């Protein structure tokens, strides 16, 4: 679900770019140097995930994984999503370059929300982390569909109509993403729990560590 060139009105396009630029700057500011390898790998995963197609009726929809990106990266997720979308737009022709700001908002905001939710509710047991990860993975795509409908509503589309279609079309993706996220986070919680810690909920602690 990428927005193409010329769909959105000019004001929304510019507003999307401005908001995304601000969020990317904030995201980059909050990124710790030690987190960069993780960030790079997750960005690459986000970039490539869009090539995994899930058959749905006559067409197919592809994975987006904003939820998983957010859960693993926390505040840095917006930077990751923005860069991934830029490269998808340049190399895959997914979504227009002019709509990049809006696209980044559409997938970056759910990533941030999911990251916060995951950190807030993940608890400590492996099973609970996997469950919360699965829920955030599902939620990420659902939120992205709703933001897509909001953005398209500014271009004169009917909000509820678009939201319904976008949500329905992505039900299989949500299921797959929930499963992928639950598996990934469950695996990481078992093997390398340190990867699931971010500076979202405890910014003071993280700031203290970085200095």
């Amino acid at each position: 679900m990428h927005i193409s060139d010329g769909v959105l009105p000019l004001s929304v396009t510019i507003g999307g770019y401005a908001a995304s630029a601000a969020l990317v700057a904030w995201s980059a500011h909050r990124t710790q140097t030690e987190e960069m390898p993780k960030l790079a790998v997750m960005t690459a995963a986000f970039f490539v995930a869009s090539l995994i197609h899930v058959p749905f009726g006559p067409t197919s929809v592809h994975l987006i994984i904003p939820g998983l990106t957010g859960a693993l990266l926390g505040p840095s997720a917006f930077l990751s999503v923005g860069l991934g979308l830029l490269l998808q737009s340049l190399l895959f022709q997914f979504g227009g370059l002019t709509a990049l700001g809006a696209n980044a908002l559409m997938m970056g905001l759910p990533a941030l929300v999911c990251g916060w939710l995951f950190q807030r509710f993940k608890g400590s047991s492996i099973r609970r982390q996997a469950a919360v990860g699965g829920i955030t993975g599902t939620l990420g795509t659902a939120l992205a569909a709703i933001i897509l409908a909001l953005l398209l509503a500014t271009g004169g589309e009917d909000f509820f109509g678009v939201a319904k279609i976008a949500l329905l079309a992505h039900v299989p993706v949500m299921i797959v993403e929930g499963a992928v996220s639950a598996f990934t986070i469950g695996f990481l919680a078992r093997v390398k729990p340190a990867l699931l810690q971010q500076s979202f909920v405890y910014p003071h602690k993280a700031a203290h560590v970085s200095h």
Partner: protein
Amino acid sequence: MNVVQRGLLAGVLCVWLTGLPNFVQAQTPGQETQQEILALLKEQNNKLSGELRRIQREIAALRADMDKPGLKDVFSGIGYILGFFGAAAFVAARRKE
């Protein structure tokens, strides 16, 4: 297409054009043979148009395939990402010193 090829083509065309009336006259076909030829032509026409349709479909499928990102795009994108974060880490590490 150079001059020789063009001349050759014109020659072949001339021979065919001069030969055609002779052939048609020599046959002096009756009613049945005309019908036969018509049926043959129709059959051939059907076959050709069917084949043409198939080729058009194939071209459309090919075009759709070309729009899909290939392996090259995937790896170049991953390369860009790793390179970008590598450079960022380098800058961050230098600033820390």
